[in-house]
C-alpha cells in the first residue's frame, strides 16, 4: 500500500510527533505508515485522513497485487 501521508502532513506543517499525538498513536507507527510498511485499520486510516483534512482514498492508495 502506498500513502501520501507525508505530502499532506507537510502541507499542514505537522511533524510526525504532532500527527501521532493528534491521532493517538506512537511516532513509530506514523513512520511505518508513511513508508507503507504497516497497513492501518479502517478506524486509524479514517482518523489520519480526518486529521490531515482529506479523504481516505486520497491518502492511502491500495496496490492491486
Amino acid at each position, binding site marked *: 500500500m502506498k500513502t501520501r501521508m507525508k505530502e499532506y502532513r507537510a502541507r499542514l506543517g505537522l511533524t510526525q510527533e504532532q500527527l501521532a499525538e493528534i491521532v493517538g498513536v506512537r511516532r513509530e507507527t506514523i*513512520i*511505518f505508515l508513511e513508508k507503507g510498511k504497516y497497513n492501518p485499520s479502517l478506524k486509524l486510516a479514517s482518523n489520519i485522513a480526518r486529521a490531515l483534512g482529506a479523504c481516505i482514498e486520497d491518502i492511502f492508495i491500495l496496490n492491486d497485487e
Partner: protein
Amino acid sequence: MKCRIILWMYSVISVLALLLLLSRENIFVLLALVLGVLLLGHREIWSLIRYRRLPVIDERVRDNLSNAMRLTGILFFITSIVLLLLLRFNVFKGVPVELIVSGEFVMVGIVYLIGYYYYDRVRPNLGKRAARWLKICLITAGLSLSTVALGIVLHNLISYWFDFEEAFFFILALLAAPAVFAVSMLVSLVIYIKGLFSPAGEG
C-alpha cells in the same frame, strides 16, 4: 495521576515480592523476577522516567504485543513439558529446582523481547528476500536441533540392538547437526540485527 498510581503500585508490589523472596531465601527466583520486570517493562520504565507518562499503546503495538505473547506462550508450554520430562528422569541431579524454573522464566522473557522487536522493528524493515532467508534459517535451526535429539536416540538404539558402535547417527547428532544449527542461528542473528538497526524504521 494515572502514571503516579502505576509507579506506586509497581514499587509496592516489587518491595513486597522482594521481602517475601528474601525471607524465603529464593535468590534465584528473586533475580529472575527483577530481571524479568526490567526486561518486560523496560519501555514503560524508560518512558515514565524520561517523559513522566506511559507510552501509547496503539493498534500496531497491540498487534505486536499479542503476536509476541503468543510466541512466548507456545515456547513456555514446550519448554515446561521438556523440563518436566528432564526433571522426571533426574537429568538435573543436584541443581536446585528454583534455578531451573528461574532460568526458564528468564529465557522466556528474552524470547518475548526478541519476538516483540521482531514484529515491531525487524519484520517491517526486512525485504522479501531477507524475510525468506530468515524463515529458512529458523526452520533449519529447529530441524537441526531435533536432529540432535533424534540422532542420539537412534545411535543408542542401533548400538544396543545390533551390538556395535554405530557411527552415522553419532556424527550426525554430535557434529553435523550442531554445526548446521550454529550456522543457521548465526545467519538468523545477522538478518535480525540488520532488520533491527535498519535506518528505514527511524524515518
